């Protein structure tokens, strides 16, 4: 049923001067699901993210959002449609406070972002909403701290709060727990589960226990192609997947 699919790729490929990073991937992300994208290093997971969010142009293939072709759109345009990504390295605006970070996301809808003559205090109408979003990720007490001074795990939480400020329909999370300590991993996993309600999440993740806990569907990529797809139990039992992961994980 196509209307069940919120994000779909048809035979999408990306080549960099002859190097094939993604070799014809057809991905079907169901509305309301948490979909995991896993695979060994160099499998093309991040490239897929960049293609889906239009940060890179595809070499061939089609990308559909809600059944509409978005293959030729600008990245900011795709973001405004509600397909919002996070980044592998934490992407916060370091010199802006946590509150200002979230406010930047809220600000666009206010429609005053080109007003260079308006005072900054005209943005204060957004502060309550921004604080509520920070509270959601337990950052309320750190609202006035410059984002660059937050510990790593808290930066990821801030990034998530900023992303959620856009009320995205589809969240694309690129390794949300990368580089985190044990405690933070659990906290972020809980957070993802919480914010996934009423949304669709597509996440690249290396931590297989997080993937096992959170994801409804998992697509395994290897060398730019789909190796297997299904529930965690299904893909982890797949001999081809086990072989691809020998030496790295399972």
């Amino acid at each position, binding site marked *: 049923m196509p209307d069940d699919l919120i994000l779909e790729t048809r035979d999408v490929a990306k080549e960099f001067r002859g190097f094939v990073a993604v070799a014809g991937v057809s991905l079907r992300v169901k509305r309301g699901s948490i979909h995991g994208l896993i695979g060994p290093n160099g499998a093309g997971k991040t490239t897929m993210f960049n293609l889906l969010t239009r940060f890179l142009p595809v070499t061939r293939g089609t990308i559909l959002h809600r059944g509409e072709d978005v293959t030729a759109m600008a990245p900011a345009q795709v973001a405004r449609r509600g397909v919002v990504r996070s980044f592998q390295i934490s992407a916060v*605006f370091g010199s802006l406070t946590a509150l200002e970070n979230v406010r930047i996301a809220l600000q666009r809808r206010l429609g005053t972002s080109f007003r*260079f003559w308006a*005072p900054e205090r005209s943005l204060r109408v957004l502060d309550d909403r921004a604080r509520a979003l920070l509270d959601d990720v337990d950052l309320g007490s750190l609202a006035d701290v410059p984002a660059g001074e937050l510990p790593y795990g808290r930066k990821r939480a801030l990034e998530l709060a900023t992303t959620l400020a856009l009320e995205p329909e589809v969240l694309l999370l690129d390794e949300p727990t990368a580089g985190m300590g044990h405690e933070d991993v659990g906290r972020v996993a809980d957070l993802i589960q919480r914010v996934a309600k009423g949304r669709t999440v597509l996440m690249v993740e290396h931590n297989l226990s997080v993937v096992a806990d959170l994801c409804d569907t998992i697509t395994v990529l290897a060398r730019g192609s789909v190796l297997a797809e299904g529930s965690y139990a299904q893909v982890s039992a797949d001999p081809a997947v086990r072989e691809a992961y020998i030496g790295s994980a399972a």
Partner: protein
Amino acid sequence: MSHGARRVWSGQAVFLAWATVAACGFVAPFVVYPVFAMNVLVMALFASALNLLLGYSGLLSFGHAAFLGSAAYVTGWSAKAWGMPVLVSLAAGVAVATLLGLVFGVLALRRTGIYFAMITLGLAQVVYFIVVQMPWTGGEDGLQGIPRGTFLGIDLGNSIAMYYFTYAVFLAAFWLIQRTIRSPFGQVLRAIKENEPRAISLGYDVQRYKLLAFVISAGLAGLAGSLKALAMQFATLGDVAWQRSGEVVLMTLLGGMGTVLGPSVGALLVVTMENYLSSIGSWVTVITGAVFVVVVMAFRRGIVGEVQALLGRRS
């Protein structure tokens, strides 16, 4: 908490900055030659306009002399040949610089980093050769004897009067720059400067924001040029030459890019050196070059930037 302290301090710093500029500006024409003081003001405005790009948008333009110079010529011609009132001549100069900024911006923003800088430099050279070739610009001689006219019945031919006129326009423009930095638009610029991909992923068409910043900066650089033409009563090739573009980058870095007062401090220093050391001829260039090297190597934040960092550490 240290973060709270910094916020308060930055509010105080802004106020202090304003008070300092205002006080110095008021007494200046009685302490130094008014024409020298006006030269400092217009170059301070020029550098502050560049700072909007370099310091707050992360864009290095190497062609800003094109806006300064073209506005100077247009204002000069408007006042001299057409006898237009001061404000009309100023507006004409600013309008031409703004339009030119739009053209430069649309073309140069297709590239980033050093390529962006090179395109601005190339386009500025095109403007330079157009100015050299045009019959009305006076070629090597430039436009001489530009009348200052009157404003609200006051004869601006009087240098003290012209100084306060320049000073008032400078303060208004300086205020507009500060407002721009601290506006909703300025917030987006900061975000783009710090993490452009992230700003895109939040749905911002970053190119349009950069273009607006470039156009505002060009218009204000033009305002500086227009004021310069009236204050000095001439417009010369020196104002459209690439050396002028380099000089304004130097002023901004010297004073501290991305700081409120840095560009003005840098302009004051460079103009003072050029003025008081002019008797030793081309050695001025050697000295400014040496100062520049020292600043880049030892005080990377620039003078104001270093002072702020020092005060910030203490509080």
